[in-house]
């Protein structure tokens, strides 16, 4: 099948155009140490983002260029920092949360630096490592219910962990797995704190009552939740306390967070030990705690500020109340028992490598 010469010419031109357009990024930036003095490098995870104008204001004020190196998720970030503890690839790390804090604190990743915390942010500080890491934001993982779905069927929505094991709510709940998602891990920890010794029995009941476990938040919320995707079939899902602010239709929200089922995740920032630009690093940590950034957090990163003075967006204030009491587990205990709990909880059929050969 030969083709007219013109088509070929067009194709060649198009491909050449594409190559020219995309250019060759080989000539792109070279991040050698030459100009690191007036650069401050932030190592973080994929979800970090701040408006350009905020970053510009930081650069103007401090006279340094902010380089953001974002990759992957909080767990991978913690592993990465621990692996390169004696030779960090940046000056500041942001995005370590309370479930991974022990790993990086034990590995000696951070240099001591006590930042000036905003009003009422003290309560989020770590007991072990408070002099290394400053809390920047917090959000709570809670079960969410599709209130419209329950109202339609004239069925009361569940409110507590125990409710989920009742026959009336069989096959109605979807959560994400603790071994592959951070909300899943938070849910596991919340049930652990709530049930203590009876925890194993609770999980057995939960699974017997048709709990569906998928691998990530996205799959649970958009794939399984009746108020998430168009094809979801389950009206109870694991999400965040702020999620109801995103399901607002005609001035009302169609979902609600169950405030008795929450586990709080706090994200921290700290100066890396061995940073090439420690002064710039400290300025950046201060900047993350400043009212400017604190006010911006909900819109940019879907998390709550740690500062008691920062205003929340209207939808958050109206539809996403914060839990008064959350379930808590100490970071050191999480580090020590993560493996054991994973093997006994959500993923009881998917043990991590903890099984010993018999005998």
């Amino acid at each position: 099948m030969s083709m007219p010469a013109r088509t070929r010419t067009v194709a060649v031109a198009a491909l050449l155009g594409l190559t020219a357009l995309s250019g060759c990024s080989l000539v792109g930036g070279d991040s050698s140490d030459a100009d690191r003095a007036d650069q401050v490098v932030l190592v973080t995870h994929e979800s970090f983002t701040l408006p350009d104008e905020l970053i510009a204001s930081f650069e103007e004020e401090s006279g340094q260029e902010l380089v953001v190196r974002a990759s992957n998720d909080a767990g991978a970030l913690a592993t990465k920092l621990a692996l390169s503890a004696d030779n960090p690839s940046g000056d500041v790390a942001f995005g370590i949360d309370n479930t991974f804090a022990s790993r990086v604190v034990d590995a000696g990743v951070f240099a001591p630096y006590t930042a000036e915390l905003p009003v009422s942010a003290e309560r989020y500080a770590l007991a072990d490592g408070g002099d290394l890491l400053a809390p920047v934001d917090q959000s709570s993982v809670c079960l969410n219910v599709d209130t419209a779905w329950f109202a339609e069927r004239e069925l009361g929505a569940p409110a507590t962990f125990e409710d989920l094991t009742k026959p009336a709510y069989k096959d109605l709940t979807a959560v994400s797995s603790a071994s592959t998602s951070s909300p899943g891990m938070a849910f596991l920890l919340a049930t652990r704190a709530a049930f203590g010794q009876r925890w194993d029995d609770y999980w057995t009941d939960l699974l017997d009552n048709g709990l569906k476990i998928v691998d990530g938040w996205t799959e649970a919320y958009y794939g399984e939740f009746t108020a998430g995707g168009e094809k979801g079939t389950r009206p109870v899902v694991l999400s965040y306390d702020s999620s109801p602010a995103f399901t607002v239709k005609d001035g009302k929200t169609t979902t609600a967070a169950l405030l008795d089922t929450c586990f709080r995740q706090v994200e921290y920032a700290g100066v890396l030990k061995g940073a090439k630009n420690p002064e710039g690093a400290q300025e950046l940590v201060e900047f993350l705690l400043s009212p400017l950034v604190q006010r911006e957090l909900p819109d940019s990163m879907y998390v709550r500020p740690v500062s008691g003075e920062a205003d929340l967006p209207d939808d958050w204030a109206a539809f996403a109340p914060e839990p008064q009491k959350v379930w808590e587990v100490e970071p050191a205990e999480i580090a020590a028992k993560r493996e054991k709990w994973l093997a006994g909880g959500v993923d009881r059929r998917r043990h991590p490598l903890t099984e010993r050969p018999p005998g």
Partner: protein
Amino acid sequence: MVLRRLVGLTALAAGPLVVLTLFFLLPVAGMVGRGFVVDGSFDPVGVLEVLGRPRVARVLGFTLASATAGTVLSLLLGLPSAYVLSRLDLPARRVVRAVLLVPFVLPTIVVGVAFRDVLGEGGPLGFLGWEQGPVAVVLGLAFFNAAVVIRTVGAAWESLDPRPGEAAAALGASPFQVLTTVTWPALRGSVVSAASVVFLFCATSFGVVLTLGGVRWATVETEIYLLTTSLFDLRAAAALSVLQLVVVIALLVLTARFRAPAAPVARRTSAPRRVRLTDAPALAVTALTLAFVALPIVTLVQGSLRVDGAWSLDNYRALTGRGSDRALLVPVTEALASSLRTAVDATWMALSLGLLLAVVVTRRSHSAAERRVRSGLDAVFMLPLGVSAVTLGFGLLVTLDSGPLDLRDSPLLVPIAQALVALPLVVRTLVPVLGGIDDRQRQAAASLGAGAWRTWLTVEVPVVWKPLLAASGFAFAASLGEFGATSFLARDEAPTLPIVIFRLLGHPGEMNYGMALAASVVLAATTSLVMLAVEQLRVPSLGSV
């Protein structure tokens, strides 16, 4: 003499070898080494002890079983389609070939959601109960990998001389006899090549297993991820990485035995022929494959056009902005540009390395030692496909971290990592074809006074031209959709489109979900357009340049 040839061989392969050593062998060795060293002393016993756990056997068993099933299904769907799309004169052949590469760039999450729509509790096939588990995983693997078979085998099939088959038919052989006695021996090399690549892809697939397998089914790859990032158990992760390497090497040794000397290829491809009645079964399978690939894509397009339960283009309009509630770092349009930039870089790297390698591997050996060196080279460059992206990603961080080698944050790292992933695809597409060139042609050209370059231009280039284009499209698509390694490497410049889609999917708000779907459609459409342009260049013959 022998020595001089070996030195020449090594010199040609030196470039690719340096790249491979620096960006693959060293990092993997570094990361595995971390697991072997406990409290500053070398302790292999602990690693061996990990391998003795019953769970490891289960995980390895499921990995091998699902990869085998995925490979078989990809071959069953891919081989008839390769025949139909490379030998028959069908309308819109090029378009179909271009569309078949789309799965390569689709984010696994999006495909997973599409598969669930069909197989899930509320879907049309929900009654089968296949929503999560082995069946869904195998279907997903075939969805992503059928294109590999179609392209690799199709490229070889196109440059196959049709005359021996016609001669056999004229002598009274049935179509089936022609297939088994003439065509199959000629194609065996490329089929084995394609199968080995698909198997490696399947055995190391991460997203598909997580999204479609549910949480019960762990493979070696998902297990390494869990151990490294969630549990920080480097020793067990190293043990599994070693296990993975052993399996891959065993597979490569096995396939090297089955890779027959390639069949002679024609200097020019034959014109596609008219469809006959005997092609009906192959056409039926091709239609099935197309439907299978199209179903998730159609679901995706449909989803991207829905806003609040009504048809609308709003999701697409939003792509130039920053998402509802500013979910995006950069507008999707900008991310697409940086994706294309990276992919262009990765493609030329993979092509130049791949072509060098293919030439080195396929030259006739003059001694047993030389032959061993050549096939060893061939195998070594397949390794990046068979090793966990997690091990490689962290390995790059722990090894490339000092002095002139501090490349942790180099903008080159992403295209190089993508090129290494695409390289085996390029090599496996070119080797069967280059290997099929009759050495006497080169000798004839040389005896007529052509120099090395001239010989190469007149003998090899015309034959290798089409496969090279096929391979470039392949590498481009693989790079465009690459997520695993890319998400591990820190980037200071703009994120690529798959990363942006992943980010949109990870945030509440219906608009963000709709935008993620729309962005996936844009990614798929861009891929198809680039592939189509590449298809247009597949000139019938380059004759004499």
